[in-house]
């Protein structure tokens, strides 16, 4: 394993491992550093746990993780969302092992302690066996601070962290743009592909903001498309850009025409969506409605990378979960129009299946690439990972003075600057 530079008190000097244009190989390899990340990053900042549509109605829940800690995300009878540690306060057994569902109470299977969906301890069997001063109010499921922005639900162990809206900052505008793919119906989670790869979580964090790999790694995806769509996915050739949004967040615009899905509704219907447009028109949708749905059906033209664990990636949510220093779990959550026409939603599912998932035309090659990074990083423990592509901003670009070329490694530098800030705080 790589050794960390240490100061005299043998507290590792994490700050020395991240420079402006490179990061040290130990960031992918060092188990002790991974433990420190779980403490200094994943318990200290906002971590994405759910989309509001995954909790449809009162008493709905899903299970998730904040860092490595299992949680239950619940919606109570008043509609409020709670994020609760999935651990009975008695002897630690998990109180829920379902991925999602409806429940008005969580009963620990071991000794029968029961909890309300807001975490309150409702009852314990044979309560007379406890001392007089035993107070159920002292033993709720541990609740995390929970906030929501435009359907994205985040939780944190840190009571002192800034409000979510402040943490997201300029990323909020891009979240709002991303949600326009609901085409007026709203966005709804519509199933997910989950897969693991044998590599460090930051390899995936980098990848969401890496346009440089696209034409290389995804050549076999590109050649499976019709000519018009292949041209659309020429992500390095359309004047796209990348922008550091602060706090480790960044946006990478690959298809500038698809930044705002409510613009350019008069554009010609792409050939690959003509049959869908015809079907929607035959169902009685107005021409305006058809154009709005069709323009949004393939998702946006950008990846919004939110530090540390979620991205709004073109047409889906990408969620990462660190499992160990060399293993990461990824969810690609498909999105549909909430209550929108089935024909459009079926098209969205087929597009998602085409690229994503363990047998998609894109994801397996990404995963293989990330594993190759981890395997290669076994060599050269003194070497560095370069993130020095495109350090000069573009001059005169319409998107602003501080944007780089789409293939610049600006988003990685933004994430690592935040990593450094949090690891040395």
């Amino acid at each position, binding site marked *: 394993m790589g050794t960390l530079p240490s100061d005299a008190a043998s507290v590792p000097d994490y700050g020395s491992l991240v420079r402006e244009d490179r990061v040290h190989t130990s960031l992918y390899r060092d188990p002790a550093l991974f433990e420190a990340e779980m403490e200094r990053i994943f318990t200290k900042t906002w971590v994405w746990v759910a989309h509001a549509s995954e909790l449809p109605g009162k008493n709905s829940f899903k299970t998730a993780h904040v860092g490595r800690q299992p949680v239950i995300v619940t919606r109570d009878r008043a509609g409020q969302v709670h994020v609760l540690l999935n651990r009975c306060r008695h002897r630690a057994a998990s109180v829920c092992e379902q991925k999602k569902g409806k429940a008005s109470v969580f009963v620990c299977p071991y000794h029968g302690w029961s909890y309300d969906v807001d975490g309150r301890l409702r009852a314990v069997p044979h309560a007379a066996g406890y001392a007089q001063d035993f107070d159920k109010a002292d033993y709720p499921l541990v609740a995390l601070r929970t906030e929501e922005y435009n359907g994205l639900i985040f939780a944190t162990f840190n009571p002192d962290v800034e409000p979510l809206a402040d943490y997201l900052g300029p990323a909020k505008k891009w979240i709002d743009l991303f949600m326009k793919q609901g085409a007026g119906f709203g966005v709804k989670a519509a199933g997910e592909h*989950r897969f*693991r790869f044998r590599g460090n979580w930051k390899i995936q964090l980098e990848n969401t903001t890496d346009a440089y790999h696209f034409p290389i790694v995804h050549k076999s995806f590109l050649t*499976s498309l019709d000519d018009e769509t292949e041209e659309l996915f020429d992500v390095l050739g359309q004047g796209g850009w990348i922008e550091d949004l602060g706090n480790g967040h960044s946006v990478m615009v690959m298809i500038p025409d698809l930044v705002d899905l409510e613009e350019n509704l008069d554009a010609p219907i792409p050939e690959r969506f003509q049959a869908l447009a015809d079907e929607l028109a035959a169902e009685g949708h107005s021409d305006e409605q058809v154009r709005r749905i069709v323009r949004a059906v393939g998702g946006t033209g950008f990846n919004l990378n939110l530090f540390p664990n979620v991205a709004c990636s073109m047409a889906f949510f990408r969620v990462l979960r660190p499992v160990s220093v060399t293993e990461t779990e990824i969810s690609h959550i498909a999105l549909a129009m909430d209550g929108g026409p089935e024909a459009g939603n079926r098209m969205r599912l087929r597009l998602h*299946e085409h690229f994503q998932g363990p*047998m998609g035309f894109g994801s397996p*090659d990404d995963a293989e690439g990330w*594993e*190759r990074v981890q395997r290669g990083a076994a060599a050269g423990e003194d070497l560095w990972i370069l993130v020095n592509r495109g350090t000069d901003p573009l001059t005169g670009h319409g998107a602003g003075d501080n944007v780089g070329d789409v293939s610049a490694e600006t988003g990685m530098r933004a994430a690592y600057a935040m990593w450094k800030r949090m690891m040395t705080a």
Partner: protein
Amino acid sequence: MSLETDGAAIDLHEAIAFIWREAEMLDRCAYAPWLALWSAAGRYVIPIDRGTTDYAGTLNVAYDDQAMREARVKRLKSGFSMSSAPPARTVRTVSRFVETAAEAGAIELDAAMLLVEYKYETTRLLAADLNYRIVRANGGLALDRKVIRLINSDDALHGIGYLL
């Protein structure tokens, strides 16, 4: 899924021999002859929700018509997909056959598959329930439906750079 068939009943043993031939082709990555095993309207499906039969309305690992099967094979054989160049080695067995329906020129059966894959010093085991519809067409048998319900389809999988 209905199609023109030539009507003669399909014997279970004939169907099993056909399935074993298919399995052997897949282990050899002989994908061009595998494509030729299919009826034009056939569907190759790997659902995520093991309980669903509404494949069109839910997210799947794969939901392939003929065009998508052809595109998939082209990709796997292109040499430009690093997850399938080289692919993992696989050895699979298909067994526990149960005939579930039969009509003139068609048979449906359930089966179990155990598949071992090997790549990069790692050996993995995949298990799946299989459902087939096989029809008699053009003087031989053809796959009209193959549904692969992985035992852990709704859990985290790994990249699969070959065909199940």
